[in-house]
């Protein structure tokens, strides 16, 4: 099985639609720029920003300070959608999710700011800004979100068929076999060290609300820096810290195991990834073990020599099935 055809079980949207969606993610930021130019000398220093009913407002914000915050978020959303397009174009599900979320958040925020501006202008002062019919404007980002959703399309899944039979290790009736490999990831180890250093720094500065999450993050990342993958008569297991299982696949759940090339951008990134219908433990790009389960799901883990464990898993399953 080659790298090109192994992991694609989703259809990517056409390139033109992808670019269209990435451009659509910049529209909220562009709309804010237009509004700023249009309203620059008409809006007071403050705008109404919160209502509890359709009547008078009960919250106010600095006009241009709130504009800057929301403009920055809209720029970031445009950037996220564009980078996602460039980095995740082989992973349609992840790209669609990220781009869709970025567009939705940006257009919601931009519209919320615009509603405050319109209400303030119509009322003549922030205090007199009545929400009224303007609440209906919030339908605009919903409609825009739906438009972008249609543009990027739904994730279609096509079943993959194995292109070649995978090797199966023959096992004698009285024979027991166990395979085990510890996976080390220098990248995760450095990341854990960095987080731990941050936790210690904040700890010394007595900033518990920053130190505690960093310390928890360091432990979680450290767990992923030292993982053990085992295959034996019980099936496949992935354990952190040598004994805490984070993934178990029983032999009777295994349909087929194969050695494939794991491309992190096709499996949703690095670390423990969970996507619809499949999950993966990706520590680097390179060879890995892909298990097709009887319920149609897939699990992948990056290993330095996946041929032996794949053949063993197939052999054990074949013997267990009789």
């Amino acid at each position, binding site marked *: 099985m080659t790298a090109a055809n192994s992991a694609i079980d989703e259809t990517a949207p056409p390139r033109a639609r992808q670019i269209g969606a990435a451009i659509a993610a910049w529209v909220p930021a562009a709309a804010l720029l237009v509004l700023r130019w249009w309203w620059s000398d008409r809006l007071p220093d403050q705008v109404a920003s919160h209502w509890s009913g359709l009547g008078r407002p009960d919250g106010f914000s600095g006009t241009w300070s709130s504009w800057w915050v929301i403009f920055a978020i809209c720029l970031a959303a445009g950037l996220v959608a564009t980078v996602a397009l460039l980095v995740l174009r082989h992973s349609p599900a992840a790209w669609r999710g990220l781009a869709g979320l970025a567009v939705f958040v940006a257009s919601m925020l931009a519209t919320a700011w615009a509603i405050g501006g319109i209400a303030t202008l119509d009322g003549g002062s922030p205090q007199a800004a009545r929400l009224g019919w303007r609440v209906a404007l919030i339908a605009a980002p919903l409609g825009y979100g739906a438009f972008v959703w249609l543009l990027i399309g739904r994730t279609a899944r096509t079943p993959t068929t194995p292109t070649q039979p995978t090797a199966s290790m023959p096992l004698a009736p009285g024979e*027991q076999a*166990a395979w*085990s490999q*510890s996976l080390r990831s220098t990248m995760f180890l450095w990341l854990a060290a960095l987080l731990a250093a941050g936790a210690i720094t904040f700890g010394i500065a007595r900033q518990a609300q920053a130190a505690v999450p960093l310390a928890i993050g360091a432990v979680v990342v450290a767990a992923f820096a030292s993982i053990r993958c085992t295959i034996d008569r019980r099936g496949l297991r992935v354990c952190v810290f*040598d*004994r805490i299982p984070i993934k178990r696949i029983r032999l009777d759940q295994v349909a087929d195991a194969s050695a494939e090339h794991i491309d992190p951008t096709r499996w949703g990134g690095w670390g423990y990834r969970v996507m619809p219908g499949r999950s993966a433990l990706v520590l680097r790009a390179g060879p890995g073990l892909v298990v097709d389960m009887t319920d149609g799901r897939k699990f992948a883990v990056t290993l330095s*020599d996946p041929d*032996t464990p794949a053949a063993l898993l197939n052999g054990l399953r074949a013997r267990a099935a009789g």
Partner: protein
Amino acid sequence: MLVKVDGASPVPLSEQIAAQIRAAIARAEVRAGERLPPARELGQALGVNMHTVLRAYSALRDEGVIDLRRGRGAVVRDGVDGARLRLHDLARRFTLEATRQGLTDDDIVDLLRRTR
């Protein structure tokens, strides 16, 4: 690292396990500094007693192949020579076969000297 044991073989289970681990190190499937699976884990995986695995680990420690410490588990020692390990493995299999054929220690040494 693949460990296979055969209950039908006359070779004791712990020796089978030790031989497989030695071979895995010789093939560089397991490298210096790498941790071997915990004895309890490997025992459960193979359906053998934990103490059988520990006996294999102790033998490997006595040969200077691994460090075995409480709490740290079994770790492949630095500077373990794969080629040397392969030679040890061959010697072990040779003496096992020679003993089975009824050769004494002196006969084995003589045989080695003559085949040089």
